[in-house]
């Protein structure tokens, strides 16, 4: 595989839901170790775009290539991509009927065929990394939202992904729990993880992102480094969005 090729490539990607066009001609390249923040008003296609990257949504047109594997209808290719891409959801989506440690073990055992004892060791290592090893034996509902989201991050990391996608990871959290989740994400960024984060946390975007992408009505409107993005945005739509979310 070519080392200089971007890890994630989207070329002219379109996505339709019936007649509604959710993504319009999306072009995006992400290199290994890059941290991308995607923002934009609701319904702008941010989530749809990252959900196309691990094929939770099927793109209608264009090409998506992840680490040299192009996403097609082939189950083999989809599986290959999903092995490299971890995802964290807005609503955590922990398996409610499994204990925390089992949540972290199940995919390792089923997908990677990791033996049980080793899967447990890996699970505990990542629970320690997100600082809640003492919750291993509990069920998700017994944890706070912030703790559940940290477990969800650990669950994705157990699969040793190359890329992590975050779909509004803090939007469902009470304000006092947002920082504990962002801290885990900042920690992950420091370790060089390739990340695409859909978020409205502009503080996080400013301090962590290499690039910020602003989307509106299914299009990438503006793409810039944080400094430029916040201090001198080019497009009117970006200016309007920033004025709406930054001026309280």
């Amino acid at each position, binding site marked *: 595989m070519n080392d200089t090729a971007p890890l994630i490539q989207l070329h002219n990607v379109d996505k339709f839901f019936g007649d509604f066009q959710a993504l319009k001609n999306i072009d995006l390249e992400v290199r290994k170790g890059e941290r991308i923040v995607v923002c934009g008003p609701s319904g702008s296609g941010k989530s749809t775009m990252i959900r196309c990257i691990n*094929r939770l949504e099927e793109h209608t047109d264009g090409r998506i290539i992840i680490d040299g594997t192009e996403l097609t209808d082939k189950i083999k290719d989809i599986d290959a991509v999903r092995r490299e891409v971890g995802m964290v959801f807005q609503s955590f989506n922990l398996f409610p009927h499994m204990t925390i440690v089992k949540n972290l073990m199940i995919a390792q055992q089923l997908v990677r065929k990791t033996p049980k004892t080793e899967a447990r060791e890996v699970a505990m290592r990542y629970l320690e990394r997100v600082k809640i090893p003492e919750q291993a034996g509990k069920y998700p509902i017994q944890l706070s939202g912030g703790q559940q989201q940290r477990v*969800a991050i650990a669950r994705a990391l157990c699969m040793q992904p190359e890329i992590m996608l975050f779909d509004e990871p803090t939007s469902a959290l009470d304000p006092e729990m947002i920082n504990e989740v962002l801290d885990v994400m900042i920690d992950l960024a420091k370790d060089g993880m390739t990340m695409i984060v859909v978020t409205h946390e502009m503080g996080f975007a400013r301090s962590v992102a290499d690039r910020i992408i602003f989307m509106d009505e299914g299009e990438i409107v503006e793409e810039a480094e944080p400094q430029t993005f916040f201090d001198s945005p080019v497009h009117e739509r970006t200016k309007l969005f920033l004025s709406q979310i930054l001026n309280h």
Partner: protein
Amino acid sequence: MSFDFSLIIDSLPKMLGGIGITLQLLVVSAVLGLILAIILLLMRLSGKWWLDWPAQVYIYVFRGTPILVQIFIVYYGFPQFEFIRDSIFWPILREPTGCAIVALSLNTGAYVSEILRGGVKGVNKGLLEAGSALGMSTHQKFIYITAPIATRLALPAYSNDVISLLKSTALASTITIADMTGIARTIVAETYAPYEIFISMAIIYMVFTWIIQKTFGRIERYLGRYAEREA
């Protein structure tokens, strides 16, 4: 009207003699019906019209006709056909008990498959997306995520169906089977004391219903342990 308690005391042991048959009808039909229900459910979830369609027609027919009629068709109707008399099922369909079990199983299977489908539909889609994102296959997601959660969701409605099946077993008495109801009817025919006999019989059914209810309550609490905030 006088109420003859000594008659109840005398006839209770006789009616209890039919418990074995009643339980046999209930348990065997419930197990076979559940297996049938799971097959029908998988047909409906297959996404293939040539599996989905027959399952839908089957469910429609068996939910759309009275269970008593179904029992009569199996018992009086099937032996009319030469190929059934020649088939390997004849030893079963020759016996009234076999006919009752076949009819009850076919009937409850249709209802239970819809109950299970409700449970499957109730599973949060986000959990399946999380499974996909972790690389789990369709089968793995069904076995490890959908099935356990759907089971818990379907359980209250399923226990309702088992109780309903218990009452349906009483219809077996119409095709000469000496279950509890069959025996009660014989006693009534001999003693002309319908109140005493039928009321005591009703109480026996209620005791069974109570046992079924309690058992399912325990299973529900066990399966739902993860849904409680306190460990």
